[in-house]
C-alpha cells in the first residue's frame, strides 16, 4: 500500500485558539501538527518583550497550548512542530520544560537555532528587497534580523526522535514540509541533487504547508465575499485544515469530523493565493513553487484534492526579515453626537493642528481617520452626501501622531482635555490620554544561504 502521512494545522498566529488543534488530534487522525506563531509583525512584538526581559522574546502561548495538548498527543504519538521560539527558541524550550516538569511529563524537545543574523545584516548591508533602499538609513536603529530557515533542521530534529520541535524564524510552510520530507523520504536536494520529480513533490508539500499555515483561514474562516460567507457553517467550532499527503505528493485537504467551517474549492483557493506575489515563483528556502499548474478537485464532504504543483530549484539566498526602531505614535479617539457631528469632528482636528503648531510639537505626520466612516477604505469609502452627512447620528475621529520624539508622543494626549469644556459640544467619548507606542520598520532583504545554514544548531532537551 502506498504510504501517506497526515499533517494538521496548529495556530495561525500568536494568540490563535488551540481547541481546533485538539479536535484534529483527537478526531482527525493526524500524525503531526505544525504551528505558525510568527507573522512579520510578531517579531517586532517579541523584540519589545525581549528588551524588557532577556528570558522572553518567544510566543508565550506555546506553554499553555502544549500543556493543553500534550496528554492527547502523547496518547496518540502525535509530534508537534512550531516556530514559537521567535527571537529566543531556547527560552521557549526552557519555559516548556519547566511546565512539563511540574506535571511530571517526559518529552523530547528539539530546539532549532541559527536564524539570528543581525550582525551579518549590519555588516553586509543588503538593500531593501522591495524598494531597493540602502541599509545606511536604518543600520543604527536595527533591533533584530532573522533569516527564514527551511525544512532541513526540522527533518534532522525528527530523525533524532523529537516529540516537539521549537524553532525561531523558520518559513511558515517549511514547518509542514519538514515532517513530509521526513516521513515520505523526499529528497530536499542537499545531499543528492533534486530531480524534477523531487522538486514537484517538494512543491506539493510546500503548497500543503501554505494552505495549512493560517489555521482557520484554510477552512472557511475569513472568507471574504458578498453574502457567501454566511453559508459557511459553525465558525464558532471551526476545524482547522489537515492534509493527507501521499508519497507522490498528491494531497487531500480535509478537517476533523464534527467541526465547523468549510473546505471546498472556494475556501481552499482563497488561502492558496494568500500573501503570494508572483504565483509562478513562490519562493521558499527549499523549493520555488509554481502554482499555475495546480489542480484543485472538490470531492465534497469537506475534502479537496490538490495535485500538479510544479517545483523549481531553490535559490542560493534566504529571505531575511529585519526590524528597526522607527519613532513613536500616540493616538486619541474622540466622538461627537448629532447635530453637525461630522463638522464638529473636522473642527476638532483643526483645533489640534493649531495646538501642535502653537506648541511647536515636532512630528512627521498627523494621521486622521473616521472610524465607522472611512477607516477601512479611505478615499474609496463613499461618504453620505449633503444633509445625510450633516445628520449622521455620531462621528468618531481618530488622530494619530507620528514622531521621532518620545516626549512629543507622551504629550499628545494632553492637547485634548481642555476641549471637553471649551471645544465643540456633545462629545460622547474620549480615550487616549496616555497612548504612546514605539513603531518598528520592517527591512526585508536577501542573504546568501551559505552565511546562515552552517550556523544552524539542534539541541535536544529531555523534559
Amino acid at each position, binding site marked *: 500500500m502506498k504510504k501517506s502521512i497526515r499533517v494538521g494545522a496548529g495556530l495561525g498566529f500568536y494568540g490563535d485558539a488551540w481547541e481546533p488543534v485538539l479536535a484534529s488530534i483527537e478526531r482527525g487522525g493526524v500524525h503531526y501538527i505544525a504551528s505558525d506563531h510568527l507573522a*512579520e509583525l510578531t517579531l*517586532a512584538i517579541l523584540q519589545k518583550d525581549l528588551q524588557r526581559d532577556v528570558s522572553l522574546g518567544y510566543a508565550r502561548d506555546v506553554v499553555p497550548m502544549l500543556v493543553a495538548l500534550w496528554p492527547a498527543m502523547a496518547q496518540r504519538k502525535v509530534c508537534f512542530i512550531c516556530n514559537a521560539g521567535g527571537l529566543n527558541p531556547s527560552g521557549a524550550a526552557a519555559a516548556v520544560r519547566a511546565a512539563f516538569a511540574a506535571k511530571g511529563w517526559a518529552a523530547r524537545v528539539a530546539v532549532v537555532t541559527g536564524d539570528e543574523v543581525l550582525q551579518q545584516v549590519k555588516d553586509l548591508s543588503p538593500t531593501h528587497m522591495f524598494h531597493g533602499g540602502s541599509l545606511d538609513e536604518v543600520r543604527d536603529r536595527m533591533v533584530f534580523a532573522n533569516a527564514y530557515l527551511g525544512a532541513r533542521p526540522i527533518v534532522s530534529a525528527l530523525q533524532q526522535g523529537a516529540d516537539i520541535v521549537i524553532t525561531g524564524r523558520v518559513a511558515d510552510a517549511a514547518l509542514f514540509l519538514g515532517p513530509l520530507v521526513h516521513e515520505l523520504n523526499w529528497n530536499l536536494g542537499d545531499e543528492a541533487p533534486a530531480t524534477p520529480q523531487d522538486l514537484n513533490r517538494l512543491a506539493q508539500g510546500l503548497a500543503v504547508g501554505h494552505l495549512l499555515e493560517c489555521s482557520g483561514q484554510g477552512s472557511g474562516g475569513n472568507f*471574504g465575499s*458578498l453574502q457567501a460567507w454566511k*453559508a459557511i457553517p459553525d465558525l464558532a467550532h471551526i476545524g482547522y485544515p489537515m492534509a493527507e499527503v501521499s508519497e507522490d505528493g498528491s494531497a487531500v485537504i480535509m478537517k476533523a469530523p464534527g467541526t465547523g467551517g468549510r473546505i471546498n474549492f472556494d475556501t481552499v483557493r482563497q488561502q492558496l493565493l494568500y500573501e503570494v506575489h508572483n504565483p509562478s515563483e513562490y519562493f521558499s528556502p527549499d523549493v520555488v513553487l509554481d502554482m499555475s499548474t495546480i489542480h484543485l478537485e472538490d470531492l465534497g464532504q469537506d475534502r*479537496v484534492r490538490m495535485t500538479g504543483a510544479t517545483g523549481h530549484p531553490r535559490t542560493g539566498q534566504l529571505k531575511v526579515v529585519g526590524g528597526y526602531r522607527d*519613532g513613536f505614535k500616540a493616538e486619541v479617539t474622540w466622538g461627537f453626537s448629532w447635530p453637525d457631528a461630522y463638522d464638529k469632528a473636522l473642527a476638532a482636528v483643526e483645533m489640534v493642528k493649531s495646538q501642535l503648531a502653537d506648541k511647536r510639537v515636532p512630528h512627521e505626520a498627523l494621521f486622521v481617520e473616521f472610524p465607522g466612516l472611512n477607516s*477601512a*477604505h479611505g*478615499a474609496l469609502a463613499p461618504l453620505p452626501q449633503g444633509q445625510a452627512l450633516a445628520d449622521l447620528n455620531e462621528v468618531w475621529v481618530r488622530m494619530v501622531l507620528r514622531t521621532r520624539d518620545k516626549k512629543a508622543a507622551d504629550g499628545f494626549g494632553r492637547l485634548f482635555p481642555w476641549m471637553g469644556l471649551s471645544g465643540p459640544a456633545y462629545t460622547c467619548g474620549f480615550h487616549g490620554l496616555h497612548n504612546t507606542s514605539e513603531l518598528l520598520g520592517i527591512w526585508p532583504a536577501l542573504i546568501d544561504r551559505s552565511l546562515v545554514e552552517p550556523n544552524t544548531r539542534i539541541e535536544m532537551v529531555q523534559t
Partner: protein
Amino acid sequence: MNLLTQKIQLAKLAHARSGDKADWVDFGLFAWNAAGYAVLAREVTAERVQAHFAPWLPGQVECWTLPNILAIKLVLHDALQGGGARNLRLDNLGKSMAAALLRMEINVNADELAACLAAPRVGWWGEKT
C-alpha cells in the same frame, strides 16, 4: 441578445482575500465560475486596479492570471505607510482591503452578466446565499 453594457461592482461576480508583506498588499480575486472568470480576465487589469485605488493609494499594481483556479492575483505597492508595524491606520495590515477591491466597477453586458449569475458556483454544494 442584450448587449447593453452596464457597470457592476466586482463583489457581484467575485470573492477576494488580501494579505500583507512589508509595504505591499496582495489580493487574490476569484470568479465563482468559468463565465465569471472570462469577464474578470478581460476587465481586471493592472492599469484599471491602479486607477481604482489611486484616489486613496496611488502605488504601482502588478497582475497575474491563474485560469487553473479561475483567479487573478494582484499586488499593490506602497499600500501600508511603509509596513504594518509602522502603519497608523486602524487596519494596519490591510485585512479589509480586499473589500475595497470588490468595490471596483467593471463593464459587463446584460447577456454575459446573466450567464455568470446563472452558472453554478464551482465549489459550492448548493448552499443558498
